[in-house]
């Protein structure tokens, strides 16, 4: 039977064409071909003032983007889950955004910094596992989920509400801690305690229980393995980011216990420790509000990446920062994410200008 292989090849080609053809809006649009960041912004600081234990490689501001996308994506899903079942969530669109943005950020640093093997490996591991997870979800939701989905994706069953809560708790957690520390296991009894067995949308209830149970079991197991693997291959990361500011804010810090002073210099500058990750941006915003400027962040004075969530029509419109790429927020029409870079010395000004434009900073990628 030669007919079948021939037909299969044909169908796979057509399917591939449909999947990869250019669609509007594109999941990710680069600001230009290749590296769009001025080369002089991509030079490692030769003589950092920041002590060695607080230094981090300059290219990591870019490489942390794909990792953070895996927070932005569940965050978008959690928002969506309050009003829609996640059955119609655009999982594959997010997979494309993940890999495309990884390609673009890598284009920016390629050639300017030595290849950061450890970081790339980590991105591939989490990228591939997320791709597999999202692909399975798409498959399941398309084959089964769609058939039991209530009209307009209304969140009417206990199980879909459980899912919405789970998503929100998960996102809140991973903003602070690594995902694999999330306690999926304790949610398994909760799934059965907080949902009724019978009820309207009976098939939907069964389908969701099956799906949620599967997800919780798999993530419990996978999280356990990743935790072991991470312990074995990466050092425990510091929870702080050291910054050198040009002006010691003095008493302005009293209402901000999360900002620690390490050393104040006689020229007025100071070395501060700010919380890392999610809390870094609020701390920066607080310092900017006091008129402070930045000289080094984690020892770097080169480019730093920020993402903002802005209306479709927004453009930065000031030369201190350069857009790198934009990604539409598929579940919130009219909104887009824009990744921009600015040298550390202009970060304060950029934050200030963005605030004036009432544009929300989603995250500052503190290396």
């Amino acid at each position: 039977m030669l007919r079948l292989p021939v037909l299969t090849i044909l169908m796979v080609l057509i399917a591939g064409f449909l999947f990869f053809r250019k669609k509007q809006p594109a999941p990710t649009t680069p600001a230009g071909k290749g590296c769009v960041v001025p080369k002089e912004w991509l030079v490692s600081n030769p003589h950092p003032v920041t002590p060695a234990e607080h230094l981090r490689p300059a290219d990591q501001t870019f490489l942390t983007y794909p990792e953070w996308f895996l927070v932005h994506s569940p965050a978008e899903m959690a928002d969506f889950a309050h009003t829609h079942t996640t059955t119609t969530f655009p999982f594959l669109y997010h997979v494309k955004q993940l890999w495309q943005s990884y390609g673009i950020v890598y284009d920016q640093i390629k050639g300017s910094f030595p290849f950061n093997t450890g970081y790339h490996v980590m991105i591939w591991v989490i990228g591939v596992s997320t791709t597999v997870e999202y692909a399975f979800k798409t498959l399941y939701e398309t084959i089964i989920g769609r058939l039991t989905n209530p009209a307009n994706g209304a969140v009417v069953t206990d199980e879909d509400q459980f899912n919405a809560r789970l998503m929100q708790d998960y996102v809140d957690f991973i903003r602070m801690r690594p995902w694999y520390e999330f306690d999926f296991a304790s949610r398994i009894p909760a799934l059965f305690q907080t949902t009724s067995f019978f009820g309207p949308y009976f098939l939907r209830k069964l389908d969701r229980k099956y799906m949620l149970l599967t997800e919780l079991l798999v993530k419990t197991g996978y999280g356990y393995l990743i935790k072991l693997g991470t312990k074995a291959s990466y050092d425990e990361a510091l929870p702080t980011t050291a910054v050198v500011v040009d002006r010691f804010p003095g008493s302005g810090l009293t209402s901000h216990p999360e900002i620690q002073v390490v050393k104040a210099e006689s020229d007025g500058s100071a070395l501060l420790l700010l919380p890392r990750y999610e809390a870094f941006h609020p701390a920066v915003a607080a310092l900017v509000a006091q008129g402070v400027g930045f000289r080094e962040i984690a020892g770097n004075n080169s480019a730093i990446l920020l993402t903002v969530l802005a209306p479709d029509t927004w453009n930065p419109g000031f030369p201190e920062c350069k857009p790198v790429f934009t990604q539409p927020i598929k579940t919130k029409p009219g909104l887009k994410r824009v990744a921009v870079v600015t040298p550390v010395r202009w970060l304060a000004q950029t934050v200030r200008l963005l605030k004036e434009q009432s544009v929300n900073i989603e995250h500052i990628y503190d290396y």
Partner: protein
Amino acid sequence: MRLKHTLPLSFLLFTTRGRLQRSSYWIVSLFIFSTFYVLYTLLIESIGDQSTYFLYPLLLGSLTTTAMKRLHDSNCSGYWLLAVLIPVLGPIWLIYQLGFKKGDRQKNRFGTVPDEAADYFKNDLGQLRPGLKTGERIINDVTQLNPVVVAEVFRPTSVEDLRERLRITTGPVSVGGGRFSMGGQTASPQSLHIDMRGLNQVLDFSKENRTIKVQAGIRWCDIQRYVDPHDLSIKIMQTYANFTVGGSLSVNVHGRYMGLGPLILAVRAVEIVLADGSFVRASRTENPEIFFGVIGGYNGLGIIATAELDLVDNVAVRRKDQKMARSDYYSWFQTHVRSNPDAVFHNGDLYPPAYRNIRAVTWLKTTEQPTVKTRLMPLRESYPLERYFLWAFTETFFGNWRREYLIDPLIYLRKPIHWRNYEAGYDVAELEPRSRTKRTYVLQEYFVPVRQFDAFTERMAEIFNRFGVNVINVSIRHAHADPGSYLAWARGEVFAFVVYYKQRTSETARQEVGTWTRELIDAAVSLDGAYYLPYQAHATPAQFHRAYPDAKKLFALKKTLDPDFRFHNLFWNTYYQPKSLES
């Protein structure tokens, strides 16, 4: 018979019977998912979301049925699909079972191994055609060149049945086994045709004495399946295992075995039903004239009911090949093969159209592990590659050249090790073209004393090239002398030239084949050789008697044992009593 080729795709997608092998399952799954994705995307974009729901019965239906058939492949019922309801473990087990586990290598309760034919290729039971009287059937052979209308087809299931039928009837009788002979040897107009294939029992088997007694309608492949578990192998048979023992005895066949020769060398005794229904046993010592008249006797004296055959060890054999100039072959053969005790099979392939080079292929006894997984040759539903090559060698420009210099060198790169039984288990199906209506593949064979090898090859090549014969292959085998059968084709030590060629089926094409065949026969006979009788009867009676000088003795014996000339077929009608047909 080879129904699967004509089945529509829907059969694969929407039926639950039978088995599906791993590779087919991957392909069909890829097909289902990619087709679904394409239709789903196009429907959403052109009509809208709701329109996609009609795809679901097709999607879920085909996924279920193909998965069920895949489960059948490892002897699991389709209900095991319900394992998917056990979260995590169920799907993991199913993914392994469906996508990765190999199927059973044997037949199981859901069917035979996929893509393997259930059985060796068989000829029909006699065709019906409009206009035939009640009971009449058309009996044809594998070439489809010799249709004969017989009065009735009788298929005995016991020797008693057969004897009774001969006792109570008069009139002409023809006998067919596998009907792979090619010149009407199995039928005669308006005869009672006896289809021997129902008599296929093993009657006696002794592992210690290495003998087996069988009913003559049994096929070699059936015997192989029977003796293989005892590590035994049929001593002499052809390369293909489709033939019946009775048909092979009546032709006194040979294979590619070294140190052996005509089948009669491996026969201990036969039991014969004579024209009046009486029963005699014959061996070299008991009724020897019947023994030597019936073996190789084309059903002239009586019907072979049973046979007692020798068996040998089923050894592993390793292939070794060497290409050489044809002129070097004879001396090379004498020193390397003829007296090599380890040589089990040997043949030389003479490359057309120049016939100047030979590839000598020898299978030597070995203690190494065979490279094939099965002990017997697995059968396939179709042989697309083999058919393509047959077509390409004969129908394309430089086809023969490509075979000699590109394809065979590649094929012979491998150094396979097979079991003796495996290597004697080929299925004629691999040679079967899609259709035999316009062109057909035909065999011929010539025998010459070994020292005449070069002389005959040169004459043969000259005749083939003069007539532009579309020769696919000339395979050379070796045989020791026949111990005395009347129609012995090996009156001394001989080389056999098996010629496989393609011919058109039109009348003029047949006439032309007749002309060059008679030239070849003259060439063989003039070198003190012979031609083979199970193929088309192109030889003149004079040629026949020169090639088979003892035929007269057989004819005399037939007069006494079959005085009313009951046993007919094209062979006897042509050479024994040509006039009897006209009356």
